[in-house]
């Protein structure tokens, strides 16, 4: 992708200057993806298909926003790693709590119904 990352006056502060057409394309893509995820609900998709589509569109939208609108795609790897790796800890939390929630649900069904 063509972009100008370094103006001569400030070599250390990468001014994020990219062709405006790129933003329009991403903007359009985000609209399309939002429409698609809305249609998932509109057409009442259920079960595994629903989950796959919802999560897929969600991750695609999030990726486009972070990579292009927030310019992560052109940042140095040190900054990218410092920001994008720590949220992985949340995935551990989600895993733990999913297992805990299922256990709670099971005990409630067994003893408190």
């Amino acid at each position, binding site marked *: 992708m063509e972009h100008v990352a370094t103006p001569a006056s400030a070599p250390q502060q990468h001014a994020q200057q990219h062709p*405006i057409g790129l933003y329009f394309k991403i903007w359009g893509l985000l609209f399309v993806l939002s429409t698609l995820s809305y249609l998932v609900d509109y057409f009442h998709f259920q079960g595994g298909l629903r989950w796959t589509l919802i999560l897929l569109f969600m991750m695609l939208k999030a990726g486009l926003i972070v990579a292009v609108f927030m310019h992560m795609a052109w940042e*140095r790897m040190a900054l990218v790693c410092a920001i994008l790796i720590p949220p992985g800890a949340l995935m551990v939390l989600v895993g733990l*709590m999913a297992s805990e929630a299922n256990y709670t649900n099971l005990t409630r069904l067994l003893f408190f119904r």
Partner: protein
Amino acid sequence: MTDMPLDPPGAVAGGGRSPAPPAHAAPHGDGQVAGLRGLVADWSGDQQTFQVAWGKAMMWIFLLSDTFIFGSFLTGYMTVRTSTTVPWPNPSEVFALNIGGKPVPLLLIAVMTFILISSSGTMAMAVNCAYRRDKVTAAKLMFVTAAFGAMFVSMQAFEWTKLIMDEGVRPWGNPMGAAQFGSVFFMVTGFHGLHVTAGVIYLSVVALRLLAGKYDRGNFQIVEIAGLYWHFVDLVWVFIFALFYLW
């Protein structure tokens, strides 16, 4: 931290531009090493880790902490929704709007989503204009972005009113199913709405200061930093839309 003087290439302490410098002594500026070697070089001692302005680095770190806040909220939501034995109210029906006597599922939420995405687009344009030193257009686009944000919050206020007054949803219960629905809804969307409101104020202030010429000496990077916050607000909505409204 204060504004660091920019080291010209070749004037880096203990290094300079020798023909083949070791990775940890690679000069900054144009001679930067990319990829994994760049990662190691950037994290090595005796130098600045993040090669961006301090304001931008701090905004990113703030956004990282905010990620954990919203991440914890959404994890809590997953926990109560999975563990309850009472059926969860169907968001598709709860948030439907009647158009011509027929309920259209999630209509308001879809409109709000499109408004927020549009505002992200105008914000990206504002950043682009600012780096081309077109500060009047940049400020105008920031006001448009803020207006979209205000529209979003207004629609959210409408949604809350409808839910509280017509549907009888309370943080401790509701007529449609699991009691946790209300508390999760008010907490998550409320906290997000608070961020949007703060963003509207933040963008307006930065745009006004931009017009007043307060940033004329710099490179208008403040617009990009404010933009990072705004895109993050949009980003959080992507997750709320998918996980709360579509689940």
